[in-house]
């Protein structure tokens, strides 16, 4: 057991909030969330913070730990030198509700607007599709997303420029990719991606990939392939000519 120092953001708006210092007894194997819980139980019972599973599976406890977006439940205190003060601030890209809890409702709004799964008719009478493991693996990667929104939080388009209205953000490019690349889906989401998703605003600087706790290669495997698909439809003069000549699409 050793005493460690923490600075935690407290307040209901970023402008008026402040960093409050706490000292906590920390033991072996403890993660940042354990320390927050200990502070809640012993020093500040009204310290607001979201969490659920405490095993990196639900994606509730995202915050900036020393300026880097992390799941608090998967960030071990032993990753930081013992004399280092650990600063915990709420996710930057969303309005603060209180302390470490932020208002992430915009993400649910965005999800509601995404074009839904559009299946082809089932291949077997009982309703199953004939899909092979080697072809479902690609969209399965995107289904690992736990909706922690750390990628939204770190993305400068949202974090710095606050373009929530024009830009659905990495998490929802990943979500779109699930269905767009689903072997049994016949939908075309390119118009939505360009017009409503704001995929052109992404400048592929890969911060989203860097912070993803599920290690989804958001930029390389979801966003760039989607950008290429959008380019097929809108920015490829050769294909445009071909479409005109063959009269298709």
């Amino acid at each position: 057991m050793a005493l460690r120092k923490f600075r935690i953001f407290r307040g209901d708006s970023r402008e008026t909030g402040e960093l409050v210092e706490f000292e906590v007894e920390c033991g072996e194997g403890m993660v940042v969330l354990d320390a927050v819980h200990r502070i809640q139980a012993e020093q500040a019972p009204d310290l607001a913070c979201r969490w659920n599973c405490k095993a990196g599976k639900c994606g509730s406890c995202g915050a900036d730990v020393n300026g880097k977006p992390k799941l608090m439940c998967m960030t071990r205190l032993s990753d930081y030198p013992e004399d280092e003060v650990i600063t915990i601030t709420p996710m930057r890209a969303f309005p603060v509700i209180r302390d470490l809890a932020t208002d992430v409702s915009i993400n649910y709004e965005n999800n509601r607007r995404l074009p839904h799964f559009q299946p082809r008719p089932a291949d077997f009478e009982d309703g199953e599709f004939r899909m092979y493991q080697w072809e479902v693996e690609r969209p399965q990667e995107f289904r690992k997303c736990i909706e922690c929104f750390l990628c939204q939080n770190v993305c400068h388009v949202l974090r710095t420029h606050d373009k929530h209205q024009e830009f659905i953000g990495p998490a929802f490019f990943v979500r779109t990719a699930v269905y767009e690349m689903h072997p049994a889906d016949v939908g075309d989401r390119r118009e939505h991606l360009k017009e409503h998703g704001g995929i052109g605003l992404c400048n592929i600087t890969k911060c989203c990939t860097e912070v993803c706790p599920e290690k989804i290669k958001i930029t390389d495997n979801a966003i760039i392939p989607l950008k290429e698909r959008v380019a097929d439809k809108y920015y490829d003069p050769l294909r445009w000519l071909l479409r005109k000549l063959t009269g298709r699409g």
Partner: protein
Amino acid sequence: MGIDCQRHEFDVIVIGAGGAGLRAAIEASAQGAKTALICKSLLGKAHTVMAEGGAAAALGNMRAEDNWRVHFRDTMRGGKMHGNWRMAQIHAQEAPDRIRELEQWGALFDRTHIGRIHQRPFGGHTYDRLAHVGDRTGLEMIRVLQDKGVHMGIEVFMEATVIDIPVVDGRAAGAIAYWRETGRFLLFSAKAVVLATGGIGKAWQITSNSWEYTGDGHALALRAGAELIDMEFVQFHPTGMIWPPSVKGILVTEGVRGEGGILKNSEGERFMFRCVPEMFKGEYAETEEEADAWVAGDHVNYRRPPELLTRDVVAKAIMRENEEGRGSEHGGAYLDIASKRSAEDIRRKLPSMHHQFMELAGVDITREPMEVGPTTHYVMGGIKVDPETEETTCPGLFAAGEVAAGLHGANRLGGNSLSDLIVFGRRAGLGAAESAKALAKAPAIPEERVQVAIAEALRPFDNPSGENAFEVQAALQALMQSKCSIVRDQAGLEEAISGIAALRERARRVSVQGNREYNPGWNTAVDLRSQLDIAEMCARAALMRTESRGGHTRLDHPDSDPAQERIENVITRDGDAMRLESRKQPDLPEDLAKIIREGA
């Protein structure tokens, strides 16, 4: 003039947004009912995401011999013959369609080599039966249902905690809730209410359950006058993490054993070979060679390893090894997959387990064994429901998922939970929508009733200085862990009951600091009421059952008593107290009894 609240009116409200709640809301909405979904956390964070192994359904994709009869038999026997036979039958019959429906809604299950849904073996299931997605099946399921739900236009109330279900003229009439964010109150008037609030595990110290699992649904139903049964049956999952201390209780999926993981004691002995109970004698491998051959893929000529016995059996075996001095370093057992599978296989089939141990314990499971021990996981007991409609004994109130009881009897089979959610979630949604159609208008909830509920929730603010809610909760967890855990006896249970009564007093004196906005101290104080209720239900029902069966083990009554096999302990509210009575369940009809006797 009381405290104002935001008012809403719906045909059907569903409380809880895990698999069962979402599926119920989807069905109610599909039936044309104006539906609301109320959940305590953000949408998509419910416990269902933690389910790893898979959803049991007799699709027959791996073995043509598998069908609902085999699944029914496995479920009843796994539940130590205590379960509700009609629910087990419906569950086994409908699960395959519900799984295929998920596929139609966009789920991406792992595939067989001919491109169908792959099924994995699991404890207690005769054949490979669990439709799965790596070791994150629950996440896939909740995401599919979530997307389906939001695209159907279901209205979702996130981070709202229900504190009361008002009953008007003998019928559930809606719900009173508060927003976590603002602490303001909400009043829902509804023609039908579905409870899908999950379990109670947060009342124990070592648990795989999150802060949400405070048994709200159980407590709300009790207060609404519904009957609860089987509350003594709590499942302790045999494999939870036990080291380092801060991760104690986090689940290690049964899939590890399904993929060939073996349990060893401190002497390196594979002890499960000598722990096969009488009921399952002859159905499990007897030598290591046989178990290895099964793991290698020949499920036809060889029997499964004894590590895949039902959870109650494995959990108790680990306990016994520890009592007899052969436990692992930190009081559990070693679970070893590294010696049975290649590193690449492990990373591909159990990616999140690999990640979890690497990140939280610094253990590389492709090279070293894991240290595991029992953890509170699931409550088989809950609200008594009608098997066909999932209506509780309180008209207008429905229940599905972990909060409802019956299907799993005295012990749940792994994989039967996810299929339970979608089978009975759908039926509850259907039942609620039908029930709502019979009413022209939602019953009016008297203002007085609303104000009473609100005043009760706000009381901790009036206590000037008193107990800390977190401390009372911790005391309850310690009490339940020591007196009402995996093994119980009369003296301990009596202590638990009196201890709970004392904690009720302390809970009444809890005071909170700060205001109502996103205040975990206050939220915990409110939850305490439910937690104390379910703790009392569990302890009293456990005291009443003078035998050992499935998830309920009595040191002073170590054997199963055939006379109590079909006896259920029914709990109802009696004023401010609880009333318990024993009741005999109907016997199995001959055709089903024959399946149990003779095999499918």
